[in-house]
């Protein structure tokens, strides 16, 4: 099949300079033909189903191992209260940010890393790519920690669970077709909703949830450094730099055009809604630990939460929780490793697409494979500073969100490349508030990291 596609030859070069469709073009063109037919038939649900993917994957990918541990910590520390509507708000912020990447990808047909490199020069291009790839490799380590921890809950040794994780991540890269990769990951990512039945085993009170949503409370303990840290962790669990790079590249690889922006928005909104439901369910599932006054400050992984929850929500609930942690780590490992590949290949002008075969995408696939193997290897090194890495990942993600958001806003206001899809004043206002808010929060996080006693206890 691949040979047939690679040798697909068109008539001699035209004035437009195009004479050959590559394998990635051909696969994308076939998808576009189907989209065109479905749109002409006005089958809107089918159209949404076909065009959905990048938004759902990026939102559920960000509900990763460390994020679910953050949500569990939130539930165990504060119960059902302030953080329920707050988490919903963070996903609204995530939607506003990610929607811009849909428009950027559909308007320019270029990834985020290559746009920064080409429009703002090599310094910012290499900087953005390097900080993303470095942050991603560290984040990948934390995903394998989640997979390992989930495996330990089921009695699997670290080696076995990490090896299974590596095999599955590498297998996901073997499809050589974006559409297949996307659907396989979506099927896996929907298992993020395992946290909802886990939450039901905690027998949550509907009235308590409604009260929390309506009153943004209660907030036990009030405004402390610990509260602020949980706020920052929840923001860091929802809006991160890799999401911007990943979704734009995925939109381009999927072949979305200006005509598909409405469906791209819906895809992102649906992803945000599902991810918010899973995140809130995790808080609710862990809330019995708050009621039982369990101290979770020494908990290092999702497995600790699952073990502690077992007597409170039962074996089935705890098992679902542990399975959810494994799924969270696995899906994030697949999306984050791909995000690094896209960014690296885009920056150095190498071919970048999940439609490529291996010979055409050596750098693209090589980067994902290498980063996966490095991250998995680090987790298995005896005495490796895994906790230090986990803590540093949060600092890097929060601090580097400001530059990523600033470039996003600059690019989405660039009318030369965006045309009529450029930001209007409303999106600039919303984006500006979010950029300013996250930059201030990031700076505050940095200050608290260096001066932990600045705000007292």
């Amino acid at each position, binding site marked *: 099949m691949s040979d*047939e596609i690679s*040798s*697909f*030859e*068109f*008539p001699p070069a035209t004035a*437009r*300079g*195009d004479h*050959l*469709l*590559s394998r*990635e*073009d*051909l696969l*994308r*063109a*076939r998808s*576009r*033909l189907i989209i*065109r037919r479905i749109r002409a038939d006005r089958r809107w649900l089918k159209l949404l189903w076909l065009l959905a993917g990048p938004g759902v994957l990026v939102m559920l990918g960000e509900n990763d191992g460390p994020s679910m541990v953050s949500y569990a910590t939130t539930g165990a520390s504060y119960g059902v209260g302030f953080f329920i509507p707050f988490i919903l708000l963070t996903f609204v912020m995530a939607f506003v940010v990610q929607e811009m990447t849909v428009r950027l990808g559909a308007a*320019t*047909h*270029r990834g985020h890393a290559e*746009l920064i490199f*080409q*429009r*703002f*020069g090599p310094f*910012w291009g290499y*900087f953005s790519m390097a900080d993303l790839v470095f942050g991603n490799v560290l984040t990948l380590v934390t995903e394998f920690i989640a997979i390992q921890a989930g495996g330990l809950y089921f009695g699997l040794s670290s080696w076995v669970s990490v090896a299974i994780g590596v095999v599955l991540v590498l297998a996901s890269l073997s499809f050589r077709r974006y559409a297949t990769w996307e659907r396989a990951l979506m099927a896996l990512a929907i298992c993020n909703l395992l946290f909802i039945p886990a939450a039901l085993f905690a027998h949550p009170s509907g009235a308590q949830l409604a009260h929390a949503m309506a009153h943004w409370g209660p907030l036990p303990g009030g405004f402390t450094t610990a509260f602020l840290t949980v706020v920052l962790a929840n923001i860091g669990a929802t809006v991160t730099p890799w999401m911007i790079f990943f979704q734009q590249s995925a939109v*381009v690889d999927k*072949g979305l*055009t200006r005509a598909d922006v409405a469906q791209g928005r819906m895809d992102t909104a649906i992803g945000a809604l599902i991810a918010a439901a899973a995140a809130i369910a995790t808080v609710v599932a862990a809330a019995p630990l708050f009621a039982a006054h369990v101290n979770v400050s020494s908990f290092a992984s999702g497995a600790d939460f699952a073990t502690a929850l077992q007597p409170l929500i039962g074996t089935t609930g705890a098992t679902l929780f542990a399975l959810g942690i494994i799924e969270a780590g696995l899906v994030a490992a697949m999306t984050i490793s791909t995000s690094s590949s896209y960014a690296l290949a885009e920056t150095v*002008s190498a*071919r970048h*697409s999940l439609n490529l075969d291996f010979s055409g995408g050596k750098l693209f696939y090589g980067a994902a494979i290498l980063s996966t193997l490095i991250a998995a290897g680090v987790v298995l090194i005896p005495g490796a*500073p895994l*906790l*230090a*890495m986990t*803590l*540093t990942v949060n*600092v*890097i993600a929060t*601090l*580097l969100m*400001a*530059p990523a958001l*600033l470039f996003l806003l*600059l690019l989405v206001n*660039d009318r*030369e*490349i965006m045309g009529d899809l450029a930001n209007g004043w409303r999106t600039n206002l919303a984006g500006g508030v979010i950029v300013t808010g996250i930059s201030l929060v990031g700076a505050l996080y*940095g200050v608290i*990291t*260096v001066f932990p006693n600045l705000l007292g206890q």
Partner: protein
Amino acid sequence: MPFDRALFDALEPGQRSEISRLPLPRKQLGWSAKTLLVILRIYVVVAIPVVIYAFIKALDH
């Protein structure tokens, strides 16, 4: 494999890999964008030591 015009036209010109690999021209930045990028450089210079400090401090845990 015969030339398939419908397939060829299914992609917008900018979507074809040959064309999308051509670099876009560098953006001409106004003073406000230049100022933002200068502030960003300062931010990065401050942020990197914070990340290094955070990692070293986390090693003590």
